[in-house]
């Protein structure tokens, strides 16, 4: 087995909003190995993006991470001074985002933005420009010289996303965090971008964490899936096992809606009824209990992740004992 690259233990994120802190991410633990590709799946509000932003130390104002451990390549990130952490960002851990139009500086040329990742980590200007251009080629941009001199608004969404990927990969990071990179794109372009990242992942042997709400997309990309609900991981399973026999009722519900491709937010949960709990109003015990068709008395006790077959599940009721399936 490959060595562990990223190990997150009991990570929490609270928002210091009005009326006191509300826990949005309520104790998340998982591990990603070198070269492994993992999906972090959940609906909007489940805390998936915030988890990864906390890992990178990029939480915005009003958000903080009071507890938790984050070990990257054996080093504890949360005890690192900001200067050291900054050296990791961009160079070893890179992130790409959902909307390439707003995520690129509209007043900076694309080539400069790609090169900036290199110059921020000590590469000289001319060398950085050269490597930036090479990277633009590697992400499949047809006219790299013209593109490098141009501004983001001059291009389509797909091209901009390629440019953003170039920005992230130019330093050859060991871990790429992709936060819904295809949600804002047309379906045909989506496939191209996914293929691009998958290819680079293979050739660069880069670990990837895909944040998404779309299980369908995930199937072709990853070897393992982490399912998040209400700020916790409820299932951590290899992808084949997850699709064949999901161990958590929530995962089962998500899968049940897959034939209706695209956004899962409304479909399955309309079948169950109700909505995920808002941060700060999470029910006692299992957070899914109010909507779970398999709930039993034991569910009033908060389940932690427990091994079941080849997965980790936060549920007291094994799949074999499910009724009303």
């Amino acid at each position, binding site marked *: 087995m490959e060595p562990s690259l990223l190990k997150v233990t009991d990570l929490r994120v609270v928002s210091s909003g009005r009326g006191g802190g509300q826990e949005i991410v309520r104790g998340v633990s998982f591990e990603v190995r070198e070269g492994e590709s993992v999906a972090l799946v959940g609906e909007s509000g489940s805390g998936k993006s915030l988890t990864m932003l906390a890992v990178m130390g990029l939480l*915005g104002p009003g958000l903080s991470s009071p507890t938790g451990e984050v070990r990257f390549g054996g080093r504890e990130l949360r005890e690192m001074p900001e200067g050291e952490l900054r050296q*990791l960002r961009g160079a070893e851990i890179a992130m790409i985002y959902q909307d390439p139009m707003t995520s690129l*500086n509209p007043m900076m040329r694309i080539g400069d933005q790609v090169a900036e990742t290199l110059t*921020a980590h000590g590469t000289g200007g001319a060398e950085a420009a050269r490597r930036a251009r090479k990277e633009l080629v590697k992400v499949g941009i047809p006219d790299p010289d013209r593109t490098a001199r141009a501004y983001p*608004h001059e291009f389509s969404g797909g091209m901009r996303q390629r440019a953003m990927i170039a920005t992230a990969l130019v330093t050859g990071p060991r871990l790429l965090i992709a936060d819904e990179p295809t949600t804002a794109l047309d379906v045909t372009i989506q496939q191209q971008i996914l293929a691009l990242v998958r290819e680079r992942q293979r050739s660069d042997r880069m670990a990837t964490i895909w944040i998404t709400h779309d299980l369908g997309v995930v199937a072709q990309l990853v070897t393992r899936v982490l399912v998040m609900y209400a700020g916790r991981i409820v299932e951590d399973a290899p992808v084949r096992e997850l699709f064949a026999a999901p161990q958590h009722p929530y995962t089962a519900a998500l899968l049940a809606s897959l034939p209706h491709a695209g956004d899962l937010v409304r479909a399955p949960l309309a079948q169950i009824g109700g909505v995920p709990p808002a941060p700060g109003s999470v029910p006692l015990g299992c957070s899914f209990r109010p909507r779970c068709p398999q709930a039993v008395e034991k569910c009033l006790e908060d389940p932690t992740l427990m091994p079941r077959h080849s997965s980790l599940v936060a549920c007291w009721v094994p799949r074999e004992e499910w009724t009303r399936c």
Partner: protein
Amino acid sequence: MARRLAGALLTLVGVSLLVFLVLRVIPGNQITASLGTESGVLTPEQLASLKSYYGLNQPLPLQYLDWLANVCTGNLGLSLRSGQSVSAMTGASLPVTLELALLATGFGFVLGVGLGMLSASKPNSVRDALGQGVGLLALAIPSFVIASALVSYLAAKFGYFPNALPYAPPWEDPLLNIQQLMFPALVLGFGVAAPVMRTTRSAIIEVSSLDFVRTARGKGVSPRQVAFRHILRNAMIPIVTATGIQFGYLLGGAVIVEQIFALPGIGRQVLNGILQREYAVVQSSVLIIAAAFVVVNLLVDVLYRRIDPRVRAD
């Protein structure tokens, strides 16, 4: 672009109409009277030129057109007292105001952006309150108060009043020139700094929350580079626009400071014209200042379009 020029031109025409109409409120015989009694200094040709400028004894619309024709051919009227043509007077006074406005705007820009960056670095903190407080004071303390206090103290306590000497253009005596313009520019600069600070603060706060700033941080870019290359560069557009507009305001708005520091600028020209009932001087000078203001606004518009690559394609 052509549309913008046409709009500016239309505004200019409107401005000339307004200036003309406002000063026509003055009873006509006052002007005639002034031409009669105080016209001793003028030669018959000059008198005729002035009469033509005023276009008296004609129906109002013709007066306006006559006046416009005069202005466009360079006859801006004459001063009864000195016999000087207004165009000559303006040729000497406008550069003074321009230099003053440039210096004041430069100072105000630096101060305003600096304070704005300070305030925005930690919104709703003590730092922020301080920056905003200074900005509010700069707005609230009238320029004539600061200017008066400065002049009094410098002159009386330190015997320092370079403005008592006749005004020295920069090409004649640059050292004296700077001394004469330094304090007036400072006083006016505070007035410029206040709105620039407000614009800077809100622009920076807004830009800081945009996605690409997070992207830059995620790439490991140093906070300094993030602040300048990403945040400030994108915040510059509204800041430059606001600064340019302030510069335009100073062209006519510096009159009080010009008066206190005895600078022969165009604002003072208007004021003296009012006090001495030189209607031609007032009419033409106001027109010129307003026209310059329109031109400055147009230039600011063009400038902002040049800075923003998204609009440059236009």
